Protein backbone atom coordinates (compact mmCIF):
# COMPACT_ATOMS: atom_id res chain seq x y z
CA UNK A 1 0.00 0.00 0.00
CA UNK A 2 1.27 3.46 -0.84
CA UNK A 3 -0.10 6.93 -1.31
CA UNK A 4 1.51 9.28 -3.78
CA UNK A 5 0.57 12.96 -3.64
CA UNK A 6 1.36 15.22 -6.59
CA UNK A 7 1.65 18.82 -5.45
CA UNK A 8 3.59 20.14 -2.47
CA UNK A 9 1.33 23.08 -1.61
CA UNK A 10 -1.09 23.46 1.25
CA UNK A 11 -3.39 20.66 0.05
CA UNK A 12 -0.65 18.16 -0.70
CA UNK A 13 1.03 18.81 2.63
CA UNK A 14 -2.24 18.52 4.52
CA UNK A 15 -3.11 15.22 2.83
CA UNK A 16 0.15 13.73 4.05
CA UNK A 17 -0.18 15.18 7.54
CA UNK A 18 -3.82 14.12 7.87
CA UNK A 19 -3.05 10.58 6.67
CA UNK A 20 -0.54 10.18 9.50
CA UNK A 21 -2.96 11.79 11.96
CA UNK A 22 -5.57 9.22 10.83
CA UNK A 23 -3.13 6.43 11.60
CA UNK A 24 -2.16 5.54 8.05
CA UNK A 25 1.04 3.49 8.32
CA UNK A 26 2.11 2.83 4.73
CA UNK A 27 4.43 4.74 2.45
CA UNK A 28 3.60 8.39 1.67
CA UNK A 29 5.40 10.26 -1.11
CA UNK A 30 4.86 13.99 -1.56
CA UNK A 31 5.99 15.28 -4.95
CA UNK A 32 6.47 19.03 -5.29
CA UNK A 33 8.29 21.06 -7.92
CA UNK A 34 9.47 23.84 -5.60
CA UNK A 35 12.57 23.63 -3.41
CA UNK A 36 12.24 23.55 0.37
CA UNK A 37 9.49 22.40 2.68
CA UNK A 38 5.82 23.14 1.92
CA UNK A 39 4.82 26.65 2.87
CA UNK A 40 1.78 28.87 3.16
CA UNK A 41 0.99 31.18 0.29
CA UNK A 42 -1.37 33.69 1.98
CA UNK A 43 1.39 35.62 3.81
CA UNK A 44 3.31 36.13 0.56
CA UNK A 45 1.00 38.96 -0.50
CA UNK A 46 0.64 40.29 3.04
CA UNK A 47 3.13 40.15 5.93
CA UNK A 48 5.98 38.65 3.93
CA UNK A 49 5.82 41.37 1.28
CA UNK A 50 5.85 44.00 4.02
CA UNK A 51 8.92 42.43 5.60
CA UNK A 52 6.99 41.61 8.77
CA UNK A 53 7.27 37.87 8.20
CA UNK A 54 10.26 35.87 7.04
CA UNK A 55 10.48 32.64 5.06
CA UNK A 56 10.61 30.50 8.19
CA UNK A 57 7.27 31.97 9.27
CA UNK A 58 5.67 30.75 6.06
CA UNK A 59 6.91 27.17 6.35
CA UNK A 60 4.12 24.77 7.30
CA UNK A 61 6.43 22.37 9.14
CA UNK A 62 10.18 21.96 9.55
CA UNK A 63 12.07 19.31 7.55
CA UNK A 64 12.22 17.18 10.71
CA UNK A 65 8.43 16.79 10.67
CA UNK A 66 8.57 14.92 7.38
CA UNK A 67 11.23 12.59 8.73
CA UNK A 68 9.45 11.81 11.98
CA UNK A 69 6.19 11.25 10.12
CA UNK A 70 7.86 9.19 7.38
CA UNK A 71 6.68 11.43 4.57
CA UNK A 72 9.10 11.21 1.65
CA UNK A 73 9.48 14.56 -0.06
CA UNK A 74 10.52 14.45 -3.71
CA UNK A 75 11.45 17.68 -5.46
CA UNK A 76 10.47 17.06 -9.06
CA UNK A 77 7.77 17.64 -11.60
CA UNK A 78 5.43 14.76 -12.35
CA UNK A 79 5.22 14.34 -16.11
CA UNK A 80 2.87 11.39 -16.59
CA UNK A 81 0.45 9.07 -14.84
CA UNK A 82 0.14 5.48 -16.04
CA UNK A 83 -3.21 4.49 -14.56
CA UNK A 84 -3.01 0.84 -15.62
CA UNK A 85 0.42 0.34 -14.07
CA UNK A 86 -0.48 2.77 -11.22
CA UNK A 87 2.76 4.62 -11.72
CA UNK A 88 3.81 8.26 -11.80
CA UNK A 89 6.74 9.34 -13.96
CA UNK A 90 8.87 12.30 -12.87
CA UNK A 91 10.92 14.68 -15.00
CA UNK A 92 14.00 13.03 -13.53
CA UNK A 93 12.91 9.80 -15.21
CA UNK A 94 12.19 8.21 -11.84
CA UNK A 95 8.94 6.26 -11.53
CA UNK A 96 6.89 5.90 -8.36
CA UNK A 97 4.14 3.33 -7.89
CA UNK A 98 0.95 4.07 -6.03
CA UNK A 99 -2.11 2.36 -4.71
CA UNK A 100 -3.85 5.68 -4.20
CA UNK A 101 -2.93 8.89 -5.98
CA UNK A 102 -3.92 12.37 -4.82
CA UNK A 103 -3.72 15.19 -7.35
CA UNK A 104 -3.07 18.49 -5.60
CA UNK A 105 -1.49 20.15 -8.60
CA UNK A 106 -2.85 23.61 -7.84
CA UNK A 107 -2.95 26.41 -10.33
CA UNK A 108 -0.62 28.80 -12.09
CA UNK A 109 -0.95 32.52 -12.68
CA UNK A 110 -2.67 33.78 -15.77
CA UNK A 111 -0.15 35.79 -17.71
CA UNK A 112 -0.44 38.84 -19.92
CA UNK A 113 1.30 39.18 -23.28
CA UNK A 114 3.33 42.05 -21.84
CA UNK A 115 7.07 42.15 -21.09
CA UNK A 116 8.57 42.92 -17.68
CA UNK A 117 5.47 42.12 -15.67
CA UNK A 118 5.86 40.40 -12.29
CA UNK A 119 3.51 37.82 -10.85
CA UNK A 120 3.13 36.46 -7.36
CA UNK A 121 2.46 32.87 -6.47
CA UNK A 122 5.61 31.16 -5.23
CA UNK A 123 7.97 31.98 -2.40
CA UNK A 124 10.74 32.58 -4.96
CA UNK A 125 8.55 35.09 -6.79
CA UNK A 126 7.63 36.74 -3.50
CA UNK A 127 11.29 37.05 -2.50
CA UNK A 128 12.13 38.77 -5.77
CA UNK A 129 9.05 40.98 -5.62
CA UNK A 130 9.84 42.02 -2.07
CA UNK A 131 13.29 43.15 -3.14
CA UNK A 132 12.01 45.00 -6.21
CA UNK A 133 9.24 46.62 -4.23
CA UNK A 134 11.78 47.99 -1.79
CA UNK A 135 13.62 49.76 -4.64
CA UNK A 136 10.56 50.88 -6.62
CA UNK A 137 8.92 54.31 -6.56
CA UNK A 138 5.91 53.93 -8.84
CA UNK A 139 4.08 50.62 -8.74
CA UNK A 140 1.37 49.68 -11.24
CA UNK A 141 -0.83 46.74 -10.38
CA UNK A 142 -2.92 45.08 -13.05
CA UNK A 143 -5.96 43.46 -11.49
CA UNK A 144 -8.21 44.69 -8.70
CA UNK A 145 -8.94 41.33 -7.11
CA UNK A 146 -7.72 40.00 -3.77
CA UNK A 147 -4.08 39.53 -4.78
CA UNK A 148 -3.81 42.83 -6.61
CA UNK A 149 -5.38 44.76 -3.75
CA UNK A 150 -3.31 43.01 -1.08
CA UNK A 151 -0.16 43.88 -3.02
CA UNK A 152 -1.45 47.44 -3.46
CA UNK A 153 -1.99 47.75 0.30
CA UNK A 154 1.51 46.43 1.00
CA UNK A 155 3.13 48.70 -1.57
CA UNK A 156 1.25 51.74 -0.27
CA UNK A 157 2.14 50.86 3.32
CA UNK A 158 5.78 50.84 2.16
CA UNK A 159 5.27 54.38 0.87
CA UNK A 160 5.15 53.68 -2.86
CA UNK A 161 3.01 55.53 -5.35
CA UNK A 162 0.46 52.91 -6.38
CA UNK A 163 -1.92 52.61 -9.32
CA UNK A 164 -4.41 49.75 -9.60
CA UNK A 165 -5.80 49.00 -13.08
CA UNK A 166 -8.98 46.94 -13.20
CA UNK A 167 -10.81 45.89 -16.36
CA UNK A 168 -14.17 45.54 -14.60
CA UNK A 169 -16.33 48.47 -13.50
CA UNK A 170 -15.64 47.67 -9.83
CA UNK A 171 -13.08 45.96 -7.56
CA UNK A 172 -13.27 42.24 -6.72
CA UNK A 173 -16.30 42.12 -9.00
CA UNK A 174 -16.23 38.34 -9.37
CA UNK A 175 -16.66 37.61 -5.67
CA UNK A 176 -18.29 40.44 -3.73
CA UNK A 177 -21.34 42.69 -3.92
CA UNK A 178 -21.07 46.31 -5.08
CA UNK A 179 -21.34 47.62 -1.50
CA UNK A 180 -18.16 45.72 -0.60
CA UNK A 181 -16.35 46.82 -3.79
CA UNK A 182 -17.21 50.42 -3.01
CA UNK A 183 -16.00 50.13 0.56
CA UNK A 184 -12.60 48.79 -0.53
CA UNK A 185 -12.30 51.35 -3.29
CA UNK A 186 -12.94 54.15 -0.80
CA UNK A 187 -10.37 52.72 1.64
CA UNK A 188 -7.66 52.36 -0.99
CA UNK A 189 -8.39 55.82 -2.34
CA UNK A 190 -8.17 57.28 1.17
CA UNK A 191 -4.79 55.59 1.55
CA UNK A 192 -3.62 57.34 -1.61
CA UNK A 193 -3.91 54.52 -4.15
CA UNK A 194 -5.08 55.55 -7.59
CA UNK A 195 -7.80 53.14 -8.76
CA UNK A 196 -8.56 53.03 -12.48
CA UNK A 197 -11.67 51.02 -13.37
CA UNK A 198 -12.83 49.87 -16.82
CA UNK A 199 -9.19 50.18 -17.77
CA UNK A 200 -6.38 48.13 -19.24
CA UNK A 201 -2.65 48.58 -18.90
CA UNK A 202 -2.36 49.41 -22.58
CA UNK A 203 -5.10 52.06 -22.40
CA UNK A 204 -3.61 53.68 -19.31
CA UNK A 205 0.16 53.29 -19.72
CA UNK A 206 0.89 54.51 -16.19
CA UNK A 207 4.32 55.74 -15.14
CA UNK A 208 5.75 52.77 -13.29
CA UNK A 209 9.10 51.24 -12.47
CA UNK A 210 7.44 48.06 -11.25
CA UNK A 211 4.44 46.39 -12.89
CA UNK A 212 2.70 43.49 -11.15
CA UNK A 213 -0.26 41.52 -12.45
CA UNK A 214 -2.75 39.58 -10.35
CA UNK A 215 -5.37 38.58 -12.89
CA UNK A 216 -6.41 35.13 -11.76
CA UNK A 217 -5.13 31.63 -12.21
CA UNK A 218 -5.34 28.66 -14.53
CA UNK A 219 -5.69 25.26 -12.85
CA UNK A 220 -3.02 22.68 -13.59
CA UNK A 221 -5.07 20.02 -15.36
CA UNK A 222 -2.69 18.72 -18.02
CA UNK A 223 -1.39 15.76 -16.02
CA UNK A 224 -4.93 14.54 -15.33
CA UNK A 225 -6.10 15.25 -18.86
CA UNK A 226 -3.15 13.41 -20.42
CA UNK A 227 -3.99 10.44 -18.22
CA UNK A 228 -7.50 10.41 -19.66
CA UNK A 229 -9.30 11.74 -16.60
CA UNK A 230 -12.29 14.01 -17.21
CA UNK A 231 -11.59 17.69 -16.69
CA UNK A 232 -13.70 20.81 -17.10
CA UNK A 233 -12.94 24.00 -15.17
CA UNK A 234 -10.95 21.69 -12.91
CA UNK A 235 -10.24 18.02 -12.56
CA UNK A 236 -13.73 16.57 -12.30
CA UNK A 237 -14.38 14.82 -8.99
CA UNK A 238 -17.48 13.47 -7.26
CA UNK A 239 -18.87 14.55 -3.90
CA UNK A 240 -16.19 12.42 -2.21
CA UNK A 241 -13.47 14.16 -4.26
CA UNK A 242 -12.76 11.04 -6.30
CA UNK A 243 -11.96 11.31 -10.01
CA UNK A 244 -13.33 8.93 -12.63
CA UNK A 245 -10.53 6.58 -11.54
CA UNK A 246 -11.41 5.16 -8.13
CA UNK A 247 -7.76 5.17 -7.11
CA UNK A 248 -7.25 8.85 -7.88
CA UNK A 249 -8.52 11.85 -5.93
CA UNK A 250 -8.14 15.53 -6.72
CA UNK A 251 -8.24 18.36 -4.19
CA UNK A 252 -7.71 22.08 -3.81
CA UNK A 253 -7.29 24.68 -6.53
CA UNK A 254 -7.18 22.06 -9.31
CA UNK A 255 -10.37 20.18 -8.43
CA UNK A 256 -13.93 20.90 -9.51
CA UNK A 257 -16.46 19.32 -7.19
CA UNK A 258 -20.23 19.40 -6.69
CA UNK A 259 -20.85 21.93 -3.92
CA UNK A 260 -24.11 21.45 -2.08
CA UNK A 261 -24.26 25.08 -0.93
CA UNK A 262 -23.82 26.58 -4.39
CA UNK A 263 -25.93 23.77 -5.90
CA UNK A 264 -23.46 23.50 -8.76
CA UNK A 265 -19.90 22.36 -9.44
CA UNK A 266 -17.25 24.75 -8.25
CA UNK A 267 -13.49 25.05 -8.19
CA UNK A 268 -12.30 27.08 -5.23
CA UNK A 269 -8.96 28.71 -4.55
CA UNK A 270 -8.46 28.93 -0.82
CA UNK A 271 -6.56 27.56 2.14
CA UNK A 272 -9.76 26.30 3.74
CA UNK A 273 -10.73 24.39 0.62
CA UNK A 274 -7.30 22.79 0.28
CA UNK A 275 -7.04 21.88 3.97
CA UNK A 276 -10.56 20.51 4.44
CA UNK A 277 -10.52 18.57 1.17
CA UNK A 278 -7.16 17.06 2.12
CA UNK A 279 -8.56 15.94 5.46
CA UNK A 280 -11.63 14.48 3.73
CA UNK A 281 -9.50 12.48 1.28
CA UNK A 282 -7.17 11.27 4.04
CA UNK A 283 -10.22 9.90 5.87
CA UNK A 284 -11.44 8.21 2.69
CA UNK A 285 -8.07 6.55 2.15
CA UNK A 286 -8.12 5.02 5.62
CA UNK A 287 -11.65 3.75 5.01
CA UNK A 288 -13.93 6.49 6.23
CA UNK A 289 -15.19 7.93 2.97
CA UNK A 290 -17.66 10.75 3.27
CA UNK A 291 -19.06 13.46 1.11
CA UNK A 292 -17.10 16.67 1.29
CA UNK A 293 -19.48 19.18 2.87
CA UNK A 294 -17.41 21.92 4.51
CA UNK A 295 -18.65 25.49 4.36
CA UNK A 296 -16.21 27.47 2.18
CA UNK A 297 -14.50 30.42 3.81
CA UNK A 298 -11.89 32.91 2.73
CA UNK A 299 -10.12 35.95 4.05
CA UNK A 300 -8.21 38.99 2.87
CA UNK A 301 -6.15 41.55 4.78
CA UNK A 302 -5.67 45.03 3.35
CA UNK A 303 -4.27 47.74 5.65
CA UNK A 304 -6.19 47.27 8.91
CA UNK A 305 -9.20 45.82 7.11
CA UNK A 306 -9.73 42.15 7.83
CA UNK A 307 -12.48 40.72 5.66
CA UNK A 308 -13.69 37.19 6.22
CA UNK A 309 -16.08 35.54 3.80
CA UNK A 310 -18.26 32.51 4.50
CA UNK A 311 -20.28 30.58 1.93
CA UNK A 312 -20.54 31.15 -1.81
CA UNK A 313 -22.52 34.13 -3.13
CA UNK A 314 -23.05 32.56 -6.61
CA UNK A 315 -26.13 33.98 -8.27
CA UNK A 316 -27.25 36.09 -5.30
CA UNK A 317 -30.44 38.07 -5.85
CA UNK A 318 -30.56 40.09 -2.62
CA UNK A 319 -27.92 41.73 -0.46
CA UNK A 320 -28.41 43.31 2.96
CA UNK A 321 -25.89 45.08 5.17
CA UNK A 322 -25.65 44.75 8.93
CA UNK A 323 -23.90 47.69 10.50
CA UNK A 324 -22.64 50.92 9.00
CA UNK A 325 -19.60 50.81 6.70
CA UNK A 326 -18.64 54.19 8.20
CA UNK A 327 -17.97 52.37 11.49
CA UNK A 328 -15.40 50.19 9.60
CA UNK A 329 -17.15 47.14 11.06
CA UNK A 330 -20.02 45.62 9.13
CA UNK A 331 -21.23 42.46 7.44
CA UNK A 332 -22.94 41.89 4.12
CA UNK A 333 -25.41 39.02 3.71
CA UNK A 334 -26.06 37.42 0.31
CA UNK A 335 -29.39 35.69 -0.36
CA UNK A 336 -30.61 33.64 -3.28
CA UNK A 337 -34.25 32.64 -3.54
CA UNK A 338 -34.73 33.70 0.07
CA UNK A 339 -31.95 31.48 1.42
CA UNK A 340 -28.74 32.75 3.02
CA UNK A 341 -25.80 31.90 0.75
CA UNK A 342 -22.82 33.91 1.92
CA UNK A 343 -21.69 36.55 4.37
CA UNK A 344 -18.76 38.95 4.08
CA UNK A 345 -17.66 40.31 7.46
CA UNK A 346 -15.41 43.33 7.66
CA UNK A 347 -13.67 43.48 11.03
CA UNK A 348 -16.55 41.50 12.57
CA UNK A 349 -15.01 38.11 13.36
CA UNK A 350 -17.84 36.93 15.61
CA UNK A 351 -20.37 37.44 12.81
CA UNK A 352 -18.11 35.56 10.42
CA UNK A 353 -18.06 32.57 12.74
CA UNK A 354 -21.80 32.76 13.24
CA UNK A 355 -22.17 32.91 9.46
CA UNK A 356 -20.10 29.75 8.96
CA UNK A 357 -22.44 27.95 11.35
CA UNK A 358 -25.66 29.43 9.96
CA UNK A 359 -24.73 28.48 6.40
CA UNK A 360 -23.42 25.06 7.40
CA UNK A 361 -26.62 24.20 9.28
CA UNK A 362 -28.78 25.81 6.57
CA UNK A 363 -30.53 27.89 9.20
CA UNK A 364 -33.47 29.84 7.85
CA UNK A 365 -32.54 33.49 8.30
CA UNK A 366 -34.56 36.31 6.80
CA UNK A 367 -33.00 39.41 5.27
CA UNK A 368 -34.75 41.47 7.96
CA UNK A 369 -33.18 39.40 10.73
CA UNK A 370 -29.79 39.71 9.04
CA UNK A 371 -29.88 43.50 8.95
CA UNK A 372 -31.34 43.85 12.48
CA UNK A 373 -28.39 44.29 14.84
CA UNK A 374 -30.58 43.47 17.82
CA UNK A 375 -31.21 40.01 16.34
CA UNK A 376 -28.75 37.58 17.96
CA UNK A 377 -27.00 35.72 15.11
CA UNK A 378 -24.98 33.53 17.44
CA UNK A 379 -28.08 32.38 19.27
CA UNK A 380 -29.67 31.53 15.92
CA UNK A 381 -26.87 29.03 15.23
CA UNK A 382 -27.76 26.79 18.17
Amino acid sequence: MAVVIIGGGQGGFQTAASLRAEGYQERITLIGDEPGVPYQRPPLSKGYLLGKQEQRHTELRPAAFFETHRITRVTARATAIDRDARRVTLDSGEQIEYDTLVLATGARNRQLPLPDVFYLRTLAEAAELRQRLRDAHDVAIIGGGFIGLEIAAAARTLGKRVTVIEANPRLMARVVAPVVSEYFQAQHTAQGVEILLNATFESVRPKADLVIAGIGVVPNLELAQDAGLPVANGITVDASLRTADERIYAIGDCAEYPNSFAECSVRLESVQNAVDQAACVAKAIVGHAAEYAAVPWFWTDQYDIHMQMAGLPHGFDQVVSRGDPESRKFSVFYFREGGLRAVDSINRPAEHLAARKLIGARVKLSPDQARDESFDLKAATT
Partner: protein
Amino acid sequence: MPKITYISDSGTSRTIDVPVGDTVMEGAVQNDVDGIVAECGGNCQCATCHVYVEEKFLPLLKPIAEDEDAMLGSTASPRKSNSRLSCQLHVTPEFDGLVVHTPPTQQ
Protein backbone atom coordinates in the same frame (compact mmCIF):
# COMPACT_ATOMS: atom_id res chain seq x y z
CA MET B 1 15.96 33.55 23.61
CA PRO B 2 12.97 33.04 25.89
CA LYS B 3 12.34 29.41 26.78
CA ILE B 4 8.80 28.18 26.42
CA THR B 5 7.59 24.85 27.70
CA TYR B 6 4.81 22.98 25.93
CA ILE B 7 3.15 20.19 27.91
CA SER B 8 0.87 17.81 26.05
CA ASP B 9 -2.36 16.38 27.41
CA SER B 10 -0.55 13.08 28.04
CA GLY B 11 2.16 14.93 29.98
CA THR B 12 4.99 15.03 27.43
CA SER B 13 7.03 18.18 27.96
CA ARG B 14 9.13 20.05 25.38
CA THR B 15 11.08 23.21 26.15
CA ILE B 16 11.94 25.36 23.14
CA ASP B 17 13.95 28.56 22.64
CA VAL B 18 11.57 30.84 20.78
CA PRO B 19 12.82 34.07 19.19
CA VAL B 20 11.32 37.32 20.47
CA GLY B 21 8.64 38.45 18.04
CA ASP B 22 7.68 34.96 16.93
CA THR B 23 4.44 33.55 18.26
CA VAL B 24 4.03 30.74 20.75
CA MET B 25 2.36 28.83 17.88
CA GLU B 26 5.37 29.32 15.58
CA GLY B 27 7.71 28.14 18.31
CA ALA B 28 5.76 24.88 18.41
CA VAL B 29 5.26 24.37 14.69
CA GLN B 30 8.86 25.17 13.72
CA ASN B 31 10.11 22.67 16.26
CA ASP B 32 7.63 19.93 15.49
CA VAL B 33 5.90 20.07 18.86
CA ASP B 34 2.83 17.83 18.89
CA GLY B 35 -0.52 19.16 19.99
CA ILE B 36 -0.58 22.41 18.03
CA VAL B 37 -2.00 22.07 14.52
CA ALA B 38 -2.27 25.68 13.29
CA GLU B 39 -4.23 24.76 10.20
CA CYS B 40 -4.71 28.36 9.04
CA GLY B 41 -1.07 29.24 9.58
CA GLY B 42 -1.50 31.77 12.35
CA ASN B 43 -4.28 33.97 11.02
CA CYS B 44 -6.71 33.54 13.88
CA GLN B 45 -9.07 31.67 11.57
CA CYS B 46 -9.21 28.08 12.75
CA ALA B 47 -8.75 27.67 16.54
CA THR B 48 -6.41 24.68 16.12
CA CYS B 49 -3.52 26.28 18.06
CA HIS B 50 -5.51 26.45 21.30
CA VAL B 51 -3.44 26.31 24.51
CA TYR B 52 -4.08 26.56 28.22
CA VAL B 53 -1.63 29.03 29.74
CA GLU B 54 -0.38 28.39 33.28
CA GLU B 55 -2.23 30.89 35.44
CA LYS B 56 0.76 32.80 36.80
CA PHE B 57 1.78 33.84 33.27
CA LEU B 58 -1.61 35.23 32.28
CA PRO B 59 -0.78 38.82 33.37
CA LEU B 60 2.13 38.84 30.88
CA LEU B 61 -0.17 38.30 27.92
CA LYS B 62 -1.84 40.99 25.90
CA PRO B 63 -5.62 40.99 26.36
CA ILE B 64 -7.79 38.79 24.17
CA ALA B 65 -8.82 40.72 21.05
CA GLU B 66 -12.23 40.47 19.41
CA ASP B 67 -11.17 38.01 16.71
CA GLU B 68 -9.36 35.73 19.14
CA ASP B 69 -12.33 35.84 21.51
CA ALA B 70 -14.63 34.81 18.66
CA MET B 71 -12.38 31.92 17.59
CA LEU B 72 -11.99 30.73 21.19
CA GLY B 73 -15.72 30.08 21.03
CA SER B 74 -15.03 27.40 18.40
CA THR B 75 -12.25 25.35 19.98
CA ALA B 76 -12.45 21.55 19.81
CA SER B 77 -11.51 21.22 23.49
CA PRO B 78 -13.38 23.24 26.11
CA ARG B 79 -12.54 26.90 26.53
CA LYS B 80 -11.31 27.72 30.02
CA SER B 81 -10.39 30.97 31.76
CA ASN B 82 -6.74 30.39 30.73
CA SER B 83 -7.49 29.49 27.10
CA ARG B 84 -5.61 31.38 24.40
CA LEU B 85 -4.81 30.93 20.74
CA SER B 86 -1.06 30.55 20.59
CA CYS B 87 -0.86 32.28 17.19
CA GLN B 88 -1.90 35.49 18.92
CA LEU B 89 0.80 35.33 21.58
CA HIS B 90 3.87 37.20 20.33
CA VAL B 91 6.88 36.33 22.42
CA THR B 92 8.53 39.08 24.48
CA PRO B 93 11.61 38.70 26.70
CA GLU B 94 9.25 38.46 29.70
CA PHE B 95 7.89 35.20 28.26
CA ASP B 96 11.04 33.37 29.39
CA GLY B 97 9.83 30.38 31.39
CA LEU B 98 6.29 30.45 29.99
CA VAL B 99 4.44 27.16 30.32
CA VAL B 100 1.48 26.24 28.13
CA HIS B 101 -0.57 23.06 28.07
CA THR B 102 -1.93 21.74 24.79
CA PRO B 103 -5.50 20.41 24.88
CA PRO B 104 -6.56 16.79 24.30
CA THR B 105 -7.71 17.62 20.78
CA GLN B 106 -7.55 20.53 18.34
CA GLN B 107 -9.94 19.22 15.70
